[in-house]
């Protein structure tokens, strides 16, 4: 049989324990290249403390004129206490300042929100008053024109012009076209619809323009979008992600109401280029498009535009 072999490492070979290198140069530290970081992590105490302590214990090494051991007196302890007090004051001031800044920020915001509410209410009240005054003007005009044949003709003319310029409220049958963003789009922030970013499934100003033009082409007599009556001068354009109609931002769904012959309108709109395009978008992008007839629509009158020019009847 074979004799038992000694276990590895104990066969009297090279000693495995490393003895300290007896060279002149001190052993190089592994992390020597990171001495700055190591120094920062290990020498955290101000070395001046150790120096002063060493000097105190060994007065002989103190430089000439050195004070040596400092007796503990009131004068000796006052500066550190003062310094610590200062630390506290600094901290407290910084905290107070941050709080004050936060308060100022939220206070300002609340103030602005309050002002916006107030102004919105004011604007609504003024719009209501304008409506009242307009009907008063209408009544007064009616009364002053009289019931004669000439007066009647003028009244009729005024009514036709009012309809054409969309300044008189209109009631009657028609169709309602509802456009909505695709459900995949994030809902608009109702407080700031302009901040939204437009995706493919969002209704664009062009789509609304298309729909409105299609309705006009189909024979609509009066159109409103979300209760905003459209005149020949009304602009429909986008600002950010929102669509502005007469500079007022709207949020979806966009309800386009058109007064006219319902069946002719529906046919004309859906068969026209605008209707066909919007129907395509419905399947392409997931638009919401809904067209239905309505027996009774009532559209508000648009604001009377500023008078820009006038001429005497029959003088031209």
């Amino acid at each position, binding site marked *: 049989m074979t004799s038992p072999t000694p276990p590895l490492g104990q066969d009297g070979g090279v000693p495995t324990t490393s003895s300290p290198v007896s060279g002149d140069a001190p052993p190089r530290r592994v992390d020597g290249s990171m001495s700055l970081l190591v120094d*920062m*992590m*290990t020498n*955290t*105490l*101000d070395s*001046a*403390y*150790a120096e*002063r*302590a060493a000097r*105190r214990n060994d007065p002989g090494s103190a430089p000439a004129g050195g004070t040596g051991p*400092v007796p503990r007196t009131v004068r*000796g*302890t006052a*500066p*550190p*206490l003062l*310094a*610590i*007090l*200062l*630390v*506290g*004051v*600094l*901290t*407290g*001031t*910084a*905290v*107070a*300042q941050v709080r*004050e800044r936060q308060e100022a920020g939220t206070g300002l915001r609340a103030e602005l929100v309050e002002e916006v509410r107030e102004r919105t209410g004011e604007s609504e009240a003024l719009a209501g008053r304008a409506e009242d005054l307009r009907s008063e003007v209408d009544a007064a005009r009616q009364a002053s024109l009289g019931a004669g044949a000439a007066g009647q003709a003028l009244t009729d003319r005024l009514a036709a012009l009012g309809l054409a310029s969309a300044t008189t409220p209109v009631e009657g049958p028609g169709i309602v076209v509802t456009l909505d963003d695709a459900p995949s789009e994030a809902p608009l922030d109702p407080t700031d619809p302009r901040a939204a970013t437009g995706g493919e499934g969002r209704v664009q100003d062009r789509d609304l323009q298309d729909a409105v033009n299609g309705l006009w082409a189909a024979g609509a007599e009066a159109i409103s979008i979300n209760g905003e009556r459209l005149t020949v001068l009304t602009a429909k354009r986008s600002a950010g992600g929102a669509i502005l109609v007469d500079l007022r931002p709207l949020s979806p769904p966009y309800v386009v109401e058109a007064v006219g012959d319902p069946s002719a309108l529906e046919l004309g709109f859906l068969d026209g280029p605008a209707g066909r395009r919007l129907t395509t978008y419905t399947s392409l992008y997931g638009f919401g498009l809904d067209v239905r007839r309505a027996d009774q629509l009532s559209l508000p009158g648009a604001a009377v535009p500023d008078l820009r020019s006038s001429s005497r009847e029959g003088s031209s």
Partner: protein
Amino acid sequence: MIPALALVLGVVLGLTLEPTVPAALQPYLPIAVVAALDAVFGAVRAQLEGIFDDKVFVVSFVSNVLVAGLVVFLGDQLGVGGQLSTGVVVVLGIRIFSNAAAIRRRVFHA
């Protein structure tokens, strides 16, 4: 004990009096606080190790605050104020933590 009371008194004073800081110095206040805290932690550790010295503490406190403020001010002038204040906070934060660890070892022997 008395230093702790002084610290609390200082915080209360700062919170209640709300001294107005000149607008030009406002960005440096938080940095100054961190630098001062570093000096305080160093002082506590030195006290526990028996080598505390009044003069060293006061001088290190004042110089810490001034140097930290100066570095950030310089950074502001060079357009890297934010980064430099982050650096100052990181370095001082490491020192505060190591000193706090040393204090903890002294006090709790753990």
